[in-house]
């Protein structure tokens, strides 16, 4: 169901993941749930996209992974935003609002 809705705009996935991790460290499933939550159920990220994205961010040093006990005492891999990850989040937020402003202006003028 809703396959189209999970096909996020290219580039917005990173922003959403960074945003999801801004509050607290989360494991993969947690990130997925948090994104659904903050988007009020509009976005559902497939794990086939989510995990590669998390690993890519880890390679880039935006997030750091560590194994921890989960809410029900299972071991899970948690991702935590690093300082460069926070900087990236701010940059992407800025870019995004820029895009939104431009797009809104463009659409209204038409």
């Amino acid at each position, binding site marked *: 169901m809703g396959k189209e809705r999970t096909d996020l705009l290219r580039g917005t996935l990173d922003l959403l993941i960074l945003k999801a991790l801004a509050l607290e460290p989360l*494991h*993969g*499933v947690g990130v997925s749930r948090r994104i659904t939550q903050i988007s009020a159920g509009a976005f559902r990220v*497939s*794990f*086939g*996209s989510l*995990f*590669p994205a998390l*690993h*890519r961010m880890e*390679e880039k*040093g935006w997030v750091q992974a560590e*194994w921890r006990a*989960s809410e*029900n005492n*299972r*071991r*899970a*891999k948690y991702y935590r935003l690093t300082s460069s990850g926070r900087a990236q989040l701010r940059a992407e937020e800025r870019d995004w609002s820029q895009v939104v402003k431009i797009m809104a202006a463009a659409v209204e003028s038409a």
Partner: protein
Amino acid sequence: MRSRIGSFFRNLLRKGAVEQALDDELKSAVELLTQEKMKEGLSHPEARRQALIELGGVEQVKEEVRAIRPGMFLETFAQDLRYTVRILRKSPGFTTVAVLTLALGIGATTAMFSVVDGVLLRPLPYPQPGRLVEVGLDLPGINQFNWPLCPADYFTFREQSRTFQDIGLYYTGFGASLYSANVTGVGRPEHVPALGVTDEVLPILGVTPLLGRSFTRADDEPGSSDTVMITYGYWRSKFGGDRSVIGKTIDLDGKPTTIIGVLPQSFRFLGMTDLGVLLPLRPRTQRGYNYFAVARLKPGVTLAEASADVARMIPMEVQGDPAEMQSHRLNWFKESRIGPNLQPLKQYMIGDVGKVLWVVVGGVGLVLVIACANVANLLLVKVQGRQQELAIRAALGGSPGRIAGGLLVESLVLAVIGGALGLLFAYGGLQALIALAPSDLPRLNDIGIDRLVLLFALGVTMVAGLLFGSMLPLRYAGVREGTGLRETGRSVSASRERHRARNALVVIQVGLALVLLVSSGLMIRTFQALIHVQPGFTAPAEVETFHVHFPPEMIKAPERLVRMDQAILDSIEAIPGVSSADFSSAVPMDAGAESGPVQVEDHMLQGQLPPARRLFWVSPSFFRTMGIPIVAGRDLTWDDVLNKRPVAIVSENLAREYWHNPSDALGKQIGNPKAWRQIVGVVGNVYDDGTSREAPATVYWPITDADVFLGQPGFAIRSARAGSQAFMSEIRQAVWSVAPDLPLSAVHTLDYYYRNSMARVSFTLVLLSLAGGMALLLGAIGLYGVIAYSVSQRTREIGIRMALGAQREYILRLILGQGTKLALIGVATGIAAALGLSHFLSSLLYGVKPTDPLTFLGVTIVLVIVVLLASYIPARRAMRVDPVIALRYE
């Protein structure tokens, strides 16, 4: 960046740990999701199933993550490589055939390329070779081209030129009577190939001596002391590389001569091999149009500008002549329409041999394409058999890219193994090629496998691998879950679609094979036509020939020389088994005969130059020894020769040109008006330029007419023993009994020159036939493979047909029809391609048109028979199918 490189190595080195962590992470994700579902009230198994569905397949997610990890590319590659090795080892038959096919194709192409590289591509071994030009003259008025210069030209060009930085004159001799010198006084007397140069030649070529000094202008002055430079090879063999050789004196043609320099090992001059000594040319003591010139252009000067400059200077060269001589010569310049002939030195050296080489390279390249098509075909069969495996890999999470990559790696591995083996083949083949090459192939010594050739082989290998590899993934990487698995059950016959690629490959193979077979067929027809032409002499294998060179001071006593030549002849005729012998200025077809204008008394042309004729100076029995028939009149006699009677003999075509009937030529006067000679005999035509050219109109003068040839005559002996070592040593003894220690050179049978005249044709013929044979074999294998495979796929269908009452003949026709259709399409394509391409051969052909219908027809028949045979074998197998077994089978 550093952290990225670090993680690259971490991923690579701690691959196990990284994999483990990924596995753990996904396992925990599955558990988290399962628990989530269980909280919603699902049973554990159902919750787990839902969790896996939501995750979208653990292996797929892993593959996606692996793909973004740095270093994963190498890891994937290594995995594919291991897998490939396993696959290839599992089917040694397939691997052997594929690798051998590729090795043959790549090896042949590489060997041929190294010849092209050594002969055509590599720059001349001189600094700034692009500025070096060969300077000659064209005289279209008397139909003479690339004439040598005379010393006056050299002095004029040297002093007056605006475009040459420098110009030097050199002398090599002509044909088989190459310039050479007798060396005595050190060890055994020797006859060594020599080169005469003015002092500018070595500096123009940028050659500095290894030891001692080069020539200076003083060495070129008449009357200066005699000096010589020796080549590296001669220095090593004659003087054992003794460094104190500079300043030593050797006897050259009887004159004490000082060694002033040793040339470096790298020194090469044009195509000359085993050059021994370099002598000052001393242009002031020389005369006649006998010398070639090499010049270095000033920077930025074009060939056209230099040509214009030479054209301007040519008339200036008469200024040193007496007044009445000047107007005579200028008149001759006008009538002969004398003009410059400047060529880049490299082009002058290579000549038109490039045509032959490119044709052969093209042929060999086609074989490589056919080999690639064959391997692609084999791979297609292979992959078709592995469809189930590929489908499983796709279902288990192999992305199309990953599967395609794997198949490409397999192709490349095959290509690399084939290429490596091919390089070995090339090393071996090159020796054979060099042995086979026509002797006029320049720079033969420079041929070898160098960096450029290795690079070429690597390039060809990679292109070949990608070529046949890229045909596979396009079709098979697309196999998605389900389709591949489903299709392999108890199925209907293979669809047309699946055979299209293989059929196309077979058509290409058959077509290209036809092109190659037509080319070799045309060469065979050319060879036949050439052999068919009677060269003008008979049984050339029974004529032994050699040259002797008397020391220059003896040439000043022609009476003594002619007696010595005669004495040598007498002594040779006393050898058992000799039926006839003679001496002459040149041996037919040895490229040593001269040309010059000959006037005819009753056909004097006013204000026009007489045409140049081929000229021989001969002793009596020249015609008997060569087996040239006397058409009218008589042979020369010793009385004619010794008493210098004004007589001459002409060839039949010359006689017919003027008097229509050979016997009408007898008694007519020819030569020049100041000293007419009477024609006493007419002899058969001789193809002195090789049988592929017209026989030149020829005049034979008594040899006593030209003293110079008495000093360096070519002897010819007719005997059934010709060509044997024992016979030659008896001849040597006979010569030395008259003139002790006189060295013999250019020892060859007449047949050697005859075969040499066809060397280019036979070289092309042998190589194209080899290529054609390989193409035919590969094409037949390709077609056999396609039909055999299709029969094995259609076994069930054939069984059903037979069960329903189809006759065996019908099945045979069905399968043969399939092969015939492919073959005919291939043949049609091939004929079209061959018609388009065969004109590239036309300059090599003789007596046959590039579109020769007989060749096309013959080749087509041969090809069709072979491919029918190739499809008949599997067709017979199909005919024997037992319906009961066929239907139960699979």
